[in-house]
């Protein structure tokens, strides 16, 4: 036990003193969290719209005020030409054109006449389908509301927005567990590299010439990975909570359990890589190749439902899918893909199988 503690401490010191390794292990997930946080921050997106008022009437101004107050938009006034160049520059997401004669039509309607309807033009960019759709919906909603109000009829049907989620789950809350899962996966598979290094430099052989038992050697490597995993978890969660408003609602115990199980499973996959990589270069190569399918064929960055069938069946085999799912459930109360015991069983299964493979094929020298 004394040797295990001393060797763990030595490995940890080596890791901390290796600035490059330290930077990549700790900075990378942080950069990821902040990046995703900025993309998904704020929940409901705020759209920048150009407001082209060709009518110039008091009615148009009232419509503008009502629109700005009720929709998640910020309006920028200008002529159609100005607005077009703004949109091309990316300053605005779309253009709303209030045509000349709008007030005349409304006045006529108020006077009891039946004038021809007048068109409010919405210009959007179809290459940004989400934004485009959202703006069209907002504009349609605006026009419908105006129609109703002008016609004086009372609405018969309304929509009450609701979400089927037990907790408030904004975009960041969805992604923080995914990033944590990804960080744990990388931490684990990259365990192969120092291991192969130590074998190549005959450090493992030198240790093997001492009475140090092998379980202590393996144990110290795993212990260091777990310590780093704990630090990464604290950093990612800390930033998520402090800067991005992520709400962690789960019990700390199951969260810690899945963090440890995930770190163990992926470290074991790292040992499998180290079993077959003879050189450090080979280990680097295999690790990069392995981590991409592990990452992108799992359901951590997009819902599995959007994948084609064959890809979805691949994803349901990937351990990261289950770690992401388990962390999402336990941390932010995300909707389950699988029940937690299934997540634990799949991760545990990967752990046992990869441990068996490394026990069979790992070479110390």
């Amino acid at each position, binding site marked *: 036990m*004394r*040797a295990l*503690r*001393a*060797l763990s401490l*030595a490995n940890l*010191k*080596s890791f901390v*003193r*290796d600035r490059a390794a330290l930077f990549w292990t700790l900075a990378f997930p942080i950069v990821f969290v902040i990046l995703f946080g900025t993309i998904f921050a704020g929940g409901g997106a705020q759209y920048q719209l150009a407001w082209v008022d060709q009518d110039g009437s008091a009615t148009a101004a009232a419509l503008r005020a009502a629109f700005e107050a009720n929709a998640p938009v910020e309006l920028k006034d200008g002529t159609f030409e100005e607005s077009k160049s703004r949109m091309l520059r990316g300053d605005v997401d779309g253009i709303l054109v209030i045509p000349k004669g709008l007030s005349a039509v409304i006045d006529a309607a108020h006077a009891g006449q039946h004038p021809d309807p007048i068109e409010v033009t919405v210009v959007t960019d179809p290459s940004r389908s989400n934004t485009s759709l959202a703006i069209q919906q907002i504009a349609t909603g605006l026009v419908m509301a105006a129609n109703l109000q002008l016609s004086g009829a009372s609405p018969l049907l309304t929509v009450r927005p609701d979400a089927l989620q037990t907790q408030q789950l904004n975009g960041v809350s969805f992604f923080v567990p995914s990033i944590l899962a990804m960080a744990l996966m990388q931490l684990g598979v990259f365990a192969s590299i120092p291991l192969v290094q130590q074998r190549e*430099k*005959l*450090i493992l*052989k*030198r*240790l*093997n*010439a*001492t*009475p*140090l*038992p092998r379980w202590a050697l393996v144990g110290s490597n795993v212990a260091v990975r777990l310590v780093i995993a704990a630090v990464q978890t604290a950093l990612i969660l800390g930033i998520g909570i402090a800067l991005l408003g992520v709400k962690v609602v789960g019990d700390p115990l199951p969260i810690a359990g899945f963090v440890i199980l995930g770190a163990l499973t992926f470290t074991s996959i790292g040992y499998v890589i180290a079993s077959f990589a003879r050189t450090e270069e080979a280990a680097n190569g295999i690790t990069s190749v392995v981590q991409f399918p592990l990452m992108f064929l799992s359901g951590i960055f997009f819902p599995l439902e959007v994948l084609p069938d064959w890809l979805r069946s691949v994803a349901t085999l990937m351990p990261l899918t289950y770690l992401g799912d388990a962390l999402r459930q336990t941390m932010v109360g995300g909707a389950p893909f699988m029940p937690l015991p299934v997540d634990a069983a799949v991760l545990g299964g990967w752990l046992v199988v990869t441990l068996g493979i490394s026990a069979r094929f790992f070479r110390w*020298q």
Partner: protein
Amino acid sequence: MLGRPGQDAVITVDDVFKAYGDVKAVDGVSFQVSKGEIFGLLGPNGAGKTTTMEMIEGLHAPDSGAIHVLGMDVRHAATAIKNRVGVQLQTAALYPQLTVTELLSLFGTFYARHQPVERLLEDLELGEKRNAQTKNLSGGQRQRLSVALALVNDPEVVFLDEPTTGLDPAARHGLWTVVRRLKGEGRTILMTTHYMEEAEALCDRLAIMDHGRILDSGTAEELIGRRFRERGVHFRRAGAPDQEKLQALPAVSRVVYEEDEVVLFTSDVPATIAALLELTSRAGTEPADLMIRRASLEDVFLELTGRALRD
């Protein structure tokens, strides 16, 4: 007379074979090392010295044959043996980011008993570098540290694999002093080397290896004496007596003229020299630059393998 192998054998290697694929790295090796002696495995790179030594250290299993260290079979008592021996590997790197002191303390935790770090630092003159990370050590310092690591557990048997390879002469002689002190402390030492002068300077007994086999073993004296009974009496050619007179001196078998030297090959050095001095004093002169030379291990290796050791 040195202790012959027998009851007090600390290492016994008995008909050991080891092959890697088609390559017979060790091809039927047997020898014994007695308590308190320095035993050297001498041979060129690839002779099987390191493989032999690493099998004794328990790092590789032999394909066949038996190895006992301190009376224990390496196949069954590897951990018990490892606790009582110290190992210095030829090319092993160290944790580059740990300091000298940290590394010595770390290795101390691996053993049932260990020496104080301070003593190791002092014995191997590493005190000034105690807080240096090992990646910043010079070649000689690194080699001394690697020997210090082999001594952490105060071992009864020390294995040194090419301990002075790559060192400058000063560092090499410094390490020889350390090895002699280890012997003085009663430890048994098994070392490999491909330096003749190192083998002659340090080793009580030697085994000469080539192509995985031991070609001959014994003390340097014995190895040389078995092949080269005669010694050479060298002196300057200028002013030397005539060849017939030299040839007639007692015990002289041949007279050979080299560039500016005469060499008398003799089976009885004192008789030959006494007669030589009498001959020259009668002529009122004396032999200039008189020297007695015996054959070296280099000559033995050449004789055994038909080629020089350092090709």
